[in-house]
């Protein structure tokens, strides 16, 4: 399986993402600069964390109009897995690929620590290697991770089982319903504030994030074997 790691000016978790795929997962991966206009050669798209365009105006607001984003939308529409982590999640909401928005943390602080995440939905292509309600330890590092959406959107998220991760014990940012990560209705676009790529090997302090990437690859292998 071949992944694209999208690199915006100001991305800073692109190397971690690349490392997780190449060295921990053993899959193919390439960096793709935000100016590129073709993602057709890739099976999955990863939007890394960071401060793309310096977070100017709003987090993700300017990146969303990069050339490559229309290709990311195409990949999502084609059913390819698209994962946005932290700033990547913010870009996905700005681009309209995921509902809602990320606000400033309620306590106004940049939060950088490892938190417990509860796997609310393990029936997605991103979480099948986890058990339902399993609590995993994943680092967060964000100042604007306070997920917000209106009541109607929240009702839809619940009805369609789109809430994938919630903060297990303490909510670090004030997000609505303790939301840490959501998928789109189709289930092939996941946005999450915590960083699974920073928990891909015990040497990093934990490896609970690796199962997320393994789930993506497993799903891809299964669907491509079935088609063959």
């Amino acid at each position: 399986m071949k992944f694209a790691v999208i690199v915006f000016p100001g991305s800073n978790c692109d190397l971690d993402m690349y490392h997780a795929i190449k060295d921990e997962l053993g899959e193919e991966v390439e960096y793709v600069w935000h100016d590129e206009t073709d993602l057709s050669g890739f099976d999955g798209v990863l939007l890394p964390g960071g401060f793309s365009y310096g977070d100017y105006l709003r987090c993700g607001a300017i990146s969303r109009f990069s050339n490559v984003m229309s290709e990311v939308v195409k990949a999502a529409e084609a059913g390819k897995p698209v994962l946005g982590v932290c700033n990547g999640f913010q870009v996905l909401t700005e681009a309209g690929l995921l509902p809602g928005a990320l606000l400033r943390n309620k306590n106004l602080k940049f939060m950088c620590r490892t938190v417990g995440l509860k796997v609310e939905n393990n029936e997605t292509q991103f979480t099948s290697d986890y058990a339902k309600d399993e609590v995993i330890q994943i680092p967060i590092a964000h100042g604007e991770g306070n997920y917000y959406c209106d009541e109607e959107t929240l009702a839809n998220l619940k009805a369609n089982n789109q809430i994938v991760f919630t903060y297990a014990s303490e909510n670090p940012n004030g997000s609505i319903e303790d939301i840490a990560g959501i998928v789109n209705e189709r289930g092939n676009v996941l946005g999450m504030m915590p960083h699974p790529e920073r928990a891909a090997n015990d040497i990093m302090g934990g490896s609970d994030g690796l199962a997320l990437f393994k789930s993506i690859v497993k799903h891809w292998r299964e669907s491509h074997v079935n088609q063959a």
Partner: protein
Amino acid sequence: MKKVKVYVTLRESVLDPQGSAVMGALHSMNYNEVTDVRIGKFLELQIEEADRDLDTIVKEMCEKLLTNTVIEDYRYEVEEVASK
């Protein structure tokens, strides 16, 4: 030439933690009359006369890029600027 002043604030339904913190500070300074503080953004755009309708393009720019209508409201004012 026109100068367009765009004011962006968080929607009423969205909690503004910065505004709340500032109000707390004002109260601690004994300005207890203050009942709400909302912090927003102010943008100034210089726009040349063109064929396209000014209101149409300002609204488009606000809704596509300058604000996120999921969480923000905007309003704008247009001023004449003397051409040089």
